[in-house]
C-alpha cells in the first residue's frame, strides 16, 4: 500500500512538494469530479422514483420511504422510526398529520393511535431501484422504435461511409488522372461547409428527392465525409505501389486490387474511421431534427429532445432514456478510447 501511494504521489525531483505538484493534484481530482460527477449523478437519478426525484435536498443514492399496508386503511401508509417518550424507537405508520403532531399506528397493532411530535420521527428508507423508468418508455412510448431508428441510421451510414470513402481514397492515392487535384481541392473545400451553412437548400434537395421524413434523408447527406477520405488517403499513400503492380501482373482486376489488397492493408485507418462514424451518426441531432417530423421516424436524440420538452414533469423517464442514449458511446469510450485519442491527436479532426 505504501509503495502504491508513493508511486501515485511521486513528485518532480522527489524533494518536497512544489506548488505545481499540489496544483496538479487539485486539477486532476477536481477534473475527475467535474467530468464524471454529472454522468454518475445522471445514472443514480435515473433509478429514482418520481417522488424521490422531487425531494430537496436530494439523496445521492436512490432511496425510497418504506410503506406498509395496514389493516383498516385503504392506502399504503408511510413508515417512520419514531422516538418514544421512554427513549425507545418504534417503527410506526403515519395515519395523518395535524400541525406538529403526527397520528401514527403500529402496523402490527393498528387499533391504537400513537401521537408523535413530527420532529421525533425519521422516515424509514430503503434503497430501491426504479427499473420501471427504463422499461416503461420502451413499452408505453415509442423509445424502442427510436432506438431501432438510431441503430439503423448509425450502422447503415457507417457502412456506406466506409465503402464510399475508401473507394475515393483509393482513387486519389493510387491513380494518376486528370482532375485529381481538382477533386482533392473540392473535398478540401467541403471541410469548410458545415451543415449549419447549407441546411436550408439541403432541405429543399432532400424534399425534391422525396427523402423528407425518411431515414435515408438522414443518412445520405452525411456519408461522403471529407475527413474520412483524408484519413484513408493518408494511410493508403503508405502502401507500396509495387504491391499493386505485382497484382496487375497476376491479372488481378482493379476492383480485386481494391478489395483484396488495399482494403485489408488499410484496416487500422478503417477502424478509426468506423469508430468516429459510429459516434458522429449516433450523436447527430440538428439534421435528423430537420428531416424527421413523424414521430415513428425519430432517432433517439430527436425523440429525447422532443420528449424532454413535452414531458417536462416526467424527468424519471427522460433521465433513464438519456442513460440508454449514453450507453453505446460509453462502451465505445471504454473499449476503443485508444483508437479515438490517437486518431484525434494524429489528424486534429473530430
Amino acid at each position, binding site marked *: 500500500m505504501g509503495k502504491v501511494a508513493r508511486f501515485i504521489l511521486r513528485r518532480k525531483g522527489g524533494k518536497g512538494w512544489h506548488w505545481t505538484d499540489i496544483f496538479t493534484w487539485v486539477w486532476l481530482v477536481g477534473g475527475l469530479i467535474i*467530468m464524471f460527477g454529472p454522468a454518475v449523478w445522471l445514472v443514480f437519478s435515473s433509478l429514482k422514483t418520481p417522488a424521490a426525484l422531487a425531494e430537496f435536498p436530494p439523496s445521492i443514492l436512490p432511496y425510497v420511504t418504506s410503506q406498509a399496508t395496514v389493516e383498516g386503511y385503504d392506502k399504503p401508509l408511510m413508515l417512520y422510526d419514531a422516538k418514544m417518550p421512554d427513549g425507545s424507537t418504534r417503527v410506526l405508520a403515519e395515519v395523518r398529520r395535524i400541525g406538529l403532531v403526527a397520528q401514527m399506528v403500529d402496523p402490527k397493532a393498528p387499533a391504537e393511535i400513537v401521537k408523535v411530535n413530527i420532529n421525533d420521527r425519521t422516515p424509514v428508507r430503503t434503497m430501491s431501484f426504479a427499473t420501471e423508468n427504463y422499461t416503461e418508455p420502451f413499452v408505453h412510448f415509442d423509445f424502442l422504435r427510436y432506438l431501432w431508428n438510431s441503430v439503423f441510421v448509425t450502422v447503415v451510414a457507417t457502412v456506406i461511409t466506409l465503402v464510399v470513402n475508401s473507394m475515393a481514397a483509393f*482513387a486519389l492515392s493510387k491513380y494518376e488522372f486528370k482532375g485529381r487535384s481538382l477533386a482533392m481541392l473540392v473535398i478540401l473545400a*467541403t471541410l469548410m461547409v458545415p451543415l449549419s*451553412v447549407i441546411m436550408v437548400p439541403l432541405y*429543399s434537395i432532400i424534399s425534391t428527392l422525396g427523402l423528407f421524413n425518411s431515414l435515408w434523408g438522414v443518412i445520405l*447527406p452525411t456519408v461522403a465525409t471529407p475527413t474520412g477520405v483524408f484519413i484513408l488517403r493518408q494511410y493508403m499513400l503508405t502502401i507500396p505501389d509495387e504491391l499493386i503492380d505485382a497484382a496487375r501482373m497476376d491479372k488481378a482486376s482493379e*476492383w480485386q486490387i481494391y478489395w483484396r489488397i488495399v482494403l485489408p492493408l488499410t484496416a487500422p485507418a478503417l477502424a478509426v474511421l468506423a469508430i468516429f462514424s459510429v459516434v458522429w451518426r449516433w450523436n447527430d441531432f440538428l439534421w435528423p431534427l430537420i428531416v424527421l417530423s413523424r414521430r415513428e421516424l425519430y432517432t433517439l436524440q430527436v425523440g429525447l429532445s422532443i420528449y424532454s420538452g413535452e414531458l417536462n414533469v416526467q424527468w424519471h423517464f427522460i*433521465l433513464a432514456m438519456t442513460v440508454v442514449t449514453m450507453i453505446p458511446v460509453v462502451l465505445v469510450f471504454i473499449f476503443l478510447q485508444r483508437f479515438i*485519442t490517437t486518431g484525434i491527436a494524429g489528424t486534429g479532426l473530430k
Partner: protein
Amino acid sequence: MAPVNAVMRIIDVPLRRLQKATGIGGMATFFLAPNMLIFGIFVLLPLVINFVYSMTGGTAFFLSERDFIGGEQYSRLFQCQNYLDPMSCQEDAFWTAVGNTFWFVVLQVSLMILTALITALILNRELAARSFWRAVFFFPVLLSPVVVGLIWKWILQRQGLLNFGLYQFGMDPYTWLTDRNWTFAATIGVSLWAHMGFYALIILAGLQAIPKDLYEAAEMDGTKPARVFWRITLPLLAPNLLVVVVLALIKSVQVFDEIYVLTGGGPGTSTLFLTQYIYETGFASALRNPGLAAAASILMGGVLVVLTLIQLGIGKRGENKGKR
C-alpha cells in the same frame, strides 16, 4: 466474410468488363464517382443553391415557387440604426444572435484554450496512470449534445445537484436557468465541459512532439521552470496552439445543439445563437423565411471560410518549416 466475398466476386464480373472498356484510368473515375456524386448532390449543390435562395422571397421551399427579389434579404438583415443595439434593427433576433454568438465565442474560446492548455501541461507531466487521467478529461467529448444538454439541465434545475451543493453550505436554492446572465454563463460552462478534452488532447500531442533534449539541456543549465515554459514550451507549441485556437473558433461560431437542448435559446433571447436563428427562421417559426435564413447562413459561412483559410495557412507554414 464468405457471403461478402461472394458478393465481391459477383461485382467483379461487370467491373472487369468496365475495366476492359475504359482502361485503368477509367476505373479511377469509377472509384471516385460515388463519393463525388454524394458530395455534389448534398454539399456542392446546396452551397450553390444557397446563394440563389438568399435572393428569393416567400415561404415556399421549392426554388421554382420562389420569387427573385435580389439583395432584399441582405438589406433586411443589415437594416439597422445601431448595430450594437439589436432592438433598433429590423431583424432584431439576428443581431441579438450575432451579439450573443460574439460574446460566447470570445469568452468560450479564451477559457477553452486556457483550461485545455493547463490540462495538457498537467497530463504531460510524469503522472502515474496518465492514460486514465487523459480519459477522464476526454470522456464528455464523445457524449451526444442532447445527452450533455439534458445532464446539465437536470443539474441546474431548482432541485438539482448545484442547488444541493449550495444548500450544504447554507445557501438558498436558485433557479439558474431563468436568470439571463447565469444561463449565459451556464452555456459557456457546459460547452467547456463537453469539448475541453478534445482540445487538451491536441495540445497534448503538440507538447509531446517537443524534443525532450531541449528540456534536458535547460535542466543542466539550471533554468527555472517558469523560464522553461516561456522560452521553450510556449514558442515551440505556438503553431499547434494557433491551429487549436482557430479550430475552437470555427466550432464555437456554430454552437447549437447542446445549448438548444439546455436552454432552447432562453430565457427570452439571452442564449439565442446564430445557428439557432438560422434554424428557427428557416424551419421552426410560424413565419418562416427560408430566404432570410439562407442569407444569414451565407454570412456565417463567410466567417467560417475566413477562419478555415487562416487555419490552412497556418498548417501550410508549419509544413514548410518542417521541410526546411
